[in-house]
C-alpha cells in the first residue's frame, strides 16, 4: 500500500546527516563529558562545539544554550525556572489559551504555589492580540510565555511585537519555537525574546533531546537536582548522541529554512484548496500568518478520529484535534479557544507537510479524501440543515 505521511508536526524522520552525526557517539565515542581524562575531554570538546553550532543557528551565544530532554522540559524549565527565580519580584505570569500543554500546564501549575496566571484569549484564527498582552501586564508580572507558532492550527504569533511589549515593562518573555525552527526564521535577537524552546524530533532530529535558549543575564532556578552539568542548571549525564544529532538538525533546518518554506507553501495551498473544495470542509487557523507545512480543516458532520482511521486505512497518516485521539472527552483546547463549535472541533483534521512530501502525495490525498468523507457522512446521524 502506498503510504503518505502527513503528520510532520507530530514528529519527523531522523535525517541521514543527523543519524550519521550520532553514530560515533553510540559506538566508539562513549566517554562522559564530565570526566577529566581523555575519553571525557574528547566528548566535552564535541559537546561544546555542538553548543556553538546551535547558538550560531539561532544567533545566540554558546553560553546561552542549555540542552534538555525535549521541548517539554525546555518549556517547563523556562517557565518554572524563571517563576521560582523571580518569586520575590512578583507572582504573575501571562500565557495564551493556545499554548502547547507543556507550557500551558506548567503555567497553570504555578497557581497551586500562589501565583496568578492570566491566559490570554485568541481570535478566531488563533492569534493573540498585542493589546490584550499590554492590558494584562501588571506590577507583579514576571513572565510572559507565548508560542512562536501553534502546533495544531499553524498560526504564527506576532512574537517580535509581543516581546517588545514585555520588554518595555521589564517583564521576561519566553517563546516555544518547537514548531518554527526550520519553517520560518528564528533569530533570538531579532525576535527580542529572553527564553526560547526547541525540540529535536520536530526538525528531523532524534526524540528525547531539546534545547533552551536563555538570554545572558536571565537567571533561572533549578527545577531538577543533581550533578553540575549544563552549568549546574540541568543535571544528569548529557545525552551526547542526542546533542550531536540536535546540533546537526538545527544547523540544517536553519540553513534550508527559506528553501523549505517556498517548497511547502505551494504544496500546502494546493492541499488547502483541494480539501476545502469538498462541501462543508473549512480551514482552521490563520489564512496568511500560517506555518508553511500546516493544514487544519474541520469536516462537518464527521468525527475526527474516525476520519484519521479511515485515512490511515488508505495509507494516509494525519492527526486530529478530536477529543477521542487524546483520550479525553473535550476536544482540542486550541480549537475551542478559537471559538469553534463542538462539532467543528471534534471534526478537525490536521495534515502537516515536510521534507518528504511531494505533489503526488497531495494528489493522492485529494483523490482519497472525498470518498472517505462521504462514507462517514453517510454513516452519521447528523444532517446538513435542509438535508433529509
Amino acid at each position, binding site marked *: 500500500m502506498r503510504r503518505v505521511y502527513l503528520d510532520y508536526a507530530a514528529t519527523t524522520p531522523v535525517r541521514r546527516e543527523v543519524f550519521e552525526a550520532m553514530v560515533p557517539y553510540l559506538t566508539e565515542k562513549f566517554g562522559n563529558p564530565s570526566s577529566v581524562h581523555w575519553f571525557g575531554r574528547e566528548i566535552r570538546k564535541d559537546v561544546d562545539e555542538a553548543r556553538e553550532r546551535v547558538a550560531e543557528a539561532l544567533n545566540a551565544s554558546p553560553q546561552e544554550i542549555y540542552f534538555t530532554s525535549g521541548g517539554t522540559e525546555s518549556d517547563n524549565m523556562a517557565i518554572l525556572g524563571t517563576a521560582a527565580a523571580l518569586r520575590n519580584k512578583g507572582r504573575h505570569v501571562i500565557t495564551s489559551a493556545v499554548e502547547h500543554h507543556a507550557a500551558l500546564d506548567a503555567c497553570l501549575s504555578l497557581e497551586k504555589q500562589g501565583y496568578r496566571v492570566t491566559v490570554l484569549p485568541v481570535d478566531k484564527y488563533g492569534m493573540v492580540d498585542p493589546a490584550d498582552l499590554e492590558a494584562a501586564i501588571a506590577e507583579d508580572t514576571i513572565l510572559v510565555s507565548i508560542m512562536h507558532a501553534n502546533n495544531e492550527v499553524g498560526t504564527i504569533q506576532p512574537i517580535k511585537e509581543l516581546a517588545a511589549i514585555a520588554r518595555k515593562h521589564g517583564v521576561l518573555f519566553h517563546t516555544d519555537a518547537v514548531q518554527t525552527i526550520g519553517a520560518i526564521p528564528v533569530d533570538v535577537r531579532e525576535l527580542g525574546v529572553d527564553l526560547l524552546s526547541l525540540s529535536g524530533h520536530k526538525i528531523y532530529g532524534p526524540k528525547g533531546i531539546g534545547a533552551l535558549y536563555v538570554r545572558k543575564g536571565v537567571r533561572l532556578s533549578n527545577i531538577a537536582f543533581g550533578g553540575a552539568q549544563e552549568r549546574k542548571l540541568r543535571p544528569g549525564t548529557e545525552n551526547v548522541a542526542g546533542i550531536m544529532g540536535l546540533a546537526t538538525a538545527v544547523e540544517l533546518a536553519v540553513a534550508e529554512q527559506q528553501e523549505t518554506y517556498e517548497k511547502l507553501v505551494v504544496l500546502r495551498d494546493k492541499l488547502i484548496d483541494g480539501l476545502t473544495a469538498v462541501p462543508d470542509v473549512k480551514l482552521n487557523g490563520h489564512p496568511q500568518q500560517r506555518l508553511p507545512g500546516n493544514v487544519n480543516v474541520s469536516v462537518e*458532520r*464527521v*468525527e*475526527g*478520529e*474516525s476520519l484519521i*482511521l479511515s485515512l490511515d*486505512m488508505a495509507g494516509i497518516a494525519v492527526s486530529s484535534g*478530536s*477529543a*477521542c*485521539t487524546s*483520550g479525553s*472527552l473535550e*476536544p482540542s483546547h486550541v480549537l475551542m479557544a478559537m471559538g469553534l*463549535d*463542538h*462539532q467543528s472541533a*471534534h471534526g478537525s483534521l490536521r495534515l502537516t507537510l515536510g521534507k518528504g512530501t511531494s505533489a503526488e502525495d497531495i494528489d493522492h490525498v485529494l483523490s482519497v479524501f472525498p470518498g472517505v468523507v462521504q462514507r462517514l457522512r*453517510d*454513516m*452519521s*446521524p*447528523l444532517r446538513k440543515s435542509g438535508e433529509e
Partner: protein
Amino acid sequence: MYSEKVMDHFQNPRNVGEIADADGVGEVGNLRCGDIMRISIKVKDNVIEDIKFRTFGCGAAIATSSMITELVKGKTLEEAEEISNRHVAEALGGLPPVKMHCSNLAADALKAAIADYKKRTQQHGG
C-alpha cells in the same frame, strides 16, 4: 490500539442506515462529547427483526454500534435488553481503557430504541 475485530467493524460496519418505518428509535450522546448514536429497530413478535445505526463518533463508537446491531438481530427484546457495555466490548475483543465510554453509548442507544418501541406499543395497545 484497536483490536482487529474493532477495525473490521469500523471498516465494514454492519447495518448502517435508518429503518424508514422503524418501530423504535433511540438517540444518545451529544456533540459536546463528540459521540452521537441513533439506532432504529423493527420488531416482530417480540423479536428484533431488523436494526440499523447511524453514528457520529470515533472508531470505537462506530465499531460498537456495528457490533451491537449484529449481537441483537434476531434476539427477543428481553435478550437484547440484557446486553451490556461489557458484552459489546468483549465481543469486539476488548477496547482501550480510554474508549470504554463509547461502548456505554451503544448499549444506551439500543435501550433507548427499545424504550421508544415500548412506549409506542403501549400507546397503541393501551
